[in-house]
C-alpha cells in the first residue's frame, strides 16, 4: 500500500537554454541548441522545445543537429555557454525550494526533490492545497529567478519523477495514491527511472513491455533472474518507497548511478557487483597532466562514493586510457588492503595512470574501475588507525553533503583547482555498475 507520503519533483524546463535566454533576450522563442562544436565530437548538451520540434535531441552529435536545422536561419547554436552561471542559477532556485519545504534534496543541477508529507493541512490553509502550493513554488521561481519549472507530485519518488514528465512544459501534474496503478500501467518499462536498456531488453524477452504487465507478475517471480534488484524496484512501484532522509545508503545505488536516488525502497536486494567504474571522454583531447589527474580524481570520487553506498571495499583498481589514435589500454593493480577511501584509491590510480601513459600522445578518454570487492565499512576493523577513521568520517560527511546538495555541493582536494576546465562533457560521460547480469562494457 502506498503511504501518505507526498513527494514533489521539480524539474527546471530546458534549464541551460533558459539561463542563456535570461542573458540574451534575442534567443527567446527561437530554437536554441547548446553543445560542443560539430568538428570536435561535440554533442547536444541541451536544446529548447523549439529545437526539439526540429527533431533535435539531447546527446545527439552536434553535426547531426546542424543537419536537421539546415535551412532554418533562426536556429541559434551556442558552443560556449555561461558555465559558471548555471550553478549560480541552480543555487538560487534551490534556496527558494529549500526555504519552502521541510525536506529538500538536489538530484542534479536542474532537478530537485522535496518531501512534504504531513504538510497537507498547512498548505491547504496557506495555499489551498498541494497543487496550489506547487503553483506557488513555480510562481516564486519564475518571479525571483526568471526560470520555468515543472512539478510532478506523487506518493513515491519514482512516481513523482514520472509525473514530472507529464507536467512539462511549465506545469504541474499530480498522481494521487489511488491513481498510481492506473497512471503507471500504460508506461513502457523503460520509462521507469532505474530500468535501463539492459533490464528492459531482458524484460521484453519475457514478454513484459509495460509497467502494468510488470506489476502483474507475482512478486516471487520478479526477483528471479534479475540480480540487479528489480524486485526492489517492483516493490517500490507497488508500495512506494521508504523515508529517503533516513535511507542515505540507498541513494543512487541502482543501475548506472545517473538515476541517483530513484530506488530506495525498503526491499532493495542486490548481489555484489563485479566492478564499479566511471569513465569520461574529453571534449578535446588532453595532454596536460594536471587536467588529466583532476579528471581522474573526480572519477575516483564518483566510483568510491558508489562503492560506499553499497557498503563495499575494493581490493583492485583499473585505469583505462584511450589515446587520440583510439589505442585503448587498461592497467590495473591491487590496493594493498581493501579500501573505500577516496585518497587511498586515488593514490593508486595516479601510480597506475603514470605507468600506463607511456606514449607522448593526447588522451581522449580516461576511466577508473574498482573491482574485487570485500565487505565494507559495516564489517568492523580490528586495527583501524586514527587516520583511517578520520578519512572514513570525511568521506561519509562529503557523501552526506552531496546527497543533499548535489555533486558540486562540496569539492575535495584535487577537485578544487581549475574545476571548470577539467569538467568533462556530461553528455559524453558514461557510468555503469557491472553486475553478474549485465555484459562487460567493451
Amino acid at each position, binding site marked *: 500500500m502506498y503511504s501518505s507520503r507526498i513527494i514533489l519533483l521539480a524539474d527546471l524546463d530546458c534549464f541551460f537554454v533558459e539561463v542563456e535566454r535570461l542573458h540574451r533576450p534575442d534567443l527567446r522563442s527561437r530554437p536554441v541548441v547548446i553543445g560542443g562544436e560539430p568538428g570536435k565530437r561535440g554533442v547536444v548538451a541541451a536544446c529548447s522545445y523549439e529545437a526539439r520540434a526540429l527533431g533535435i535531441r539531447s546527446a545527439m552529435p552536434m553535426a547531426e543537429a546542424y543537419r536537421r536545422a539546415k535551412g532554418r536561419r533562426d536556429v541559434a547554436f551556442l558552443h560556449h555557454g555561461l558555465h559558471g552561471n548555471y550553478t549560480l542559477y541552480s543555487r538560487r532556485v534551490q534556496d527558494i525550494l529549500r526555504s519552502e519545504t521541510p525536506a529538500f534534496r538536489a538530484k542534479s543541477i536542474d532537478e530537485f526533490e522535496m518531501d512534504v508529507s504531513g504538510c497537507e493541512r498547512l498548505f491547504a490553509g496557506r495555499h489551498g492545497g498541494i497543487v496550489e502550493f506547487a503553483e506557488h513554488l513555480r510562481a516564486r521561481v519564475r518571479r525571483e529567478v526568471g526560470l520555468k519549472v515543472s512539478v510532478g507530485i506523487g506518493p513515491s519518488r519514482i512516481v513523482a519523477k514520472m509525473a514530472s514528465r507529464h507536467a512539462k512544459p511549465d506545469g504541474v501534474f499530480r498522481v494521487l495514491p489511488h491513481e498510481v496503478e492506473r497512471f503507471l500501467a500504460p508506461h513502457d518499462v523503460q520509462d521507469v527511472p532505474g530500468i535501463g536498456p539492459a533490464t528492459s531488453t531482458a524484460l521484453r524477452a519475457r514478454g513484459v513491455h509495460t509497467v502494468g504487465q510488470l506489476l502483474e507478475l507475482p512478486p516471487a517471480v520478479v526477483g528471479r533472474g534479475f540480480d540487479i534488484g528489480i524486485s526492489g524496484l517492483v516493490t517500490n512501484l507497488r508500495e512506494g518507497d521508504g523515508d529517503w532522509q533516513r535511507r542515505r545508503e540507498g541513494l543512487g545505488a541502482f543501475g548506472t548511478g545517473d538515476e541517483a536516488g530513484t530506488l530506495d525502497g525498503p*526491499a532493495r536486494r542486490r548481489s*555484489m557487483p563485479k566492478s564499479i567504474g566511471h569513465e569520461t571522454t574529453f571534449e578535446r583531447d588532453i595532454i596536460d597532466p594536471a587536467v588529466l589527474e583532476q579528471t581522474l580524481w573526480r572519477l575516483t570520487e564518483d566510483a568510491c562514493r558508489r562503492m560506499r553506498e553499497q557498503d563495499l571495499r575494493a*581490493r583492485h583498481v583499473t585505469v583505462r586510457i584511450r589515446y587520440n589514435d583510439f589505442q585503448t589500454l587498461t592497467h590495473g593493480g591491487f*590496493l594493498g*588492503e581493501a579500501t573505500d577511501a577516496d585518497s587511498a584509491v586515488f593514490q593508486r590510480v595516479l601510480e597506475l595512470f603514470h605507468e600506463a601513459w607511456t606514449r607522448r600522445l593526447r588522451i581522449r578518454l580516461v576511466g577508473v574501475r574498482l573491482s574485487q*570487492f*570485500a565487505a565494507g565499512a559495516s*564489517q*568492523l576493523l*580490528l586495527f583501524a588507525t586514527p587516520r583511517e577513521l578520520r578519512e572514513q568520517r570525511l568521506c561519509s560527511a562529503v557523501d552526506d553533503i552531496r546527497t543533499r546538495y548535489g555533486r558540486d555541493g562540496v569539492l575535495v582536494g584535487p577537485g578544487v583547482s581549475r574545476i571548470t576546465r577539467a569538467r568533462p562533457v556530461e553528455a559524453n560521460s558514461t557510468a555503469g555498475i557491472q553486475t553478474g547480469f549485465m555484459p562487460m562494457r567493451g
Partner: protein
Amino acid sequence: MKVVINQELLAGTLSAVNKAVSTRSVNPLLTHVKFVAEPDNLTVTGTDGEFTIRRNVAISGAEPGRTLIPAKLLSELTSRLPKKDITLELRDNQLNVSVGRSSYDLTVMWDDTYPDLPDYNEHRLVVLPCGMLKRSLLQTSFSAVKDSATGAVHYTNSVFFSFKDNRLDIVATDGHRLALKRNDGLSANDIERDLLLPVRVAEELERMLPDDEEATVEVFHYSNQVFFKFGNQLLVSSLLDVKFPPYERVIPKDISSKVHVGREELMDALGRVLLVCKQKDQNPVGYLETQGEIVNLTSDGGDYGKGHEELEAEINGEDIKIAINPRYLIDVLKVLGGEQITLNWTSEVSPVMITSPRDPAFTYIVMPIRMD
C-alpha cells in the same frame, strides 16, 4: 654425476621440493631444481628466490656431481616411470634418466648464479617440538589473507612469529579477525625477535611438518631469512619487511558475558544458516542472540528465505546480541578441538573472543558487523 634412486623416493622428493619452484619466472634458472650428489647423499633444492625447500636423500655409491634440471619435466617424467630404481647420469649437458628399457636424455645446465643459501648454522634461534609448531600454524594461518599474488606486501598476508619472554606467539589476521596461539615455556635464552612469514610459506610448512610429538624443528634466523630444519628437510623463507599491528591491544579485557556452547552443534548450525544469507559468497551476516539458556542463530537471505536455529547454551552474564560473518566462526570451530567453546562478548561493536576450555593457549577474535 651418477645416482641410483628408488622411483617412489625420487617422486616424493621432487613433489615436496617443487612446492617452492616457480612455474613462471623471469629468471629461467628458478624453474629448475638443483641436484648435488655426494657419495652417500643427494641434496635436492627448489626455490623461487624467496622461498626455498631443500631435501636430503640418503643414497649409496653415487658419483659426485651437480646439475640444474627442469623441475616440472623431471617431476612429470619420474611420476610416470615404473616403481623401480632409476638411474640418473650426467653426460655433458644431458641428464640420462633410465629405468629398465626406458631411457630419456634431458637437457640440463649448470649456472653459478642459481641462488644459494647462506651459512646459517650459527644463527639458531630455538628448537621447537614439530607437533606444537604444526598445530599452532594450523590454528592460525587460516586467518590470514591467502591470495597474496597481489604483489603488495601487507601484514594480512603473513603469519607472525613473536618471540618474547621465553614464549612464542604465533598470530595471523585479515584485519577483521585474528587467531593467536601462545606457546609458553620456551627453552630459548631470552630471545626477542619478530618474524613475519608469508602465509603461503606458513601453510606449506604446516603441511610438511610431521605430526610426531617427539620430533623437533630447529629454527634459525639470519639476515632477512628464516630457516626451519627438521628431519631431512629444510625450509627457508624471506621475511616480510612490514610491521605487524599491536595484536595484544585488541584482545578484549572486560568481558560482560560468556556463552558456553557445543562446538560441533554451533558449527553445523552456522553452516546451515550460511546457506540462506544475503551475499553468502562475500559478506554473509548471521545474527546471534541469547535468551535465557538459548542461543538464537538467525539469518535473512532476502529473496532466498530465512534461517533460524536454537542452541542450548550456558550463559554467564547479560544477554548478548551480535551480527557476525558466520564463516569467520566456522573457520575457527574447525580447527578447535573439544566439545565446548566459549563466546566472550563485550558489546555489539566490540570484538568477540572465542576460546576453548581444552586449549587455553588459543585465542580467536572476530570483529562484528555493525547493525543499523
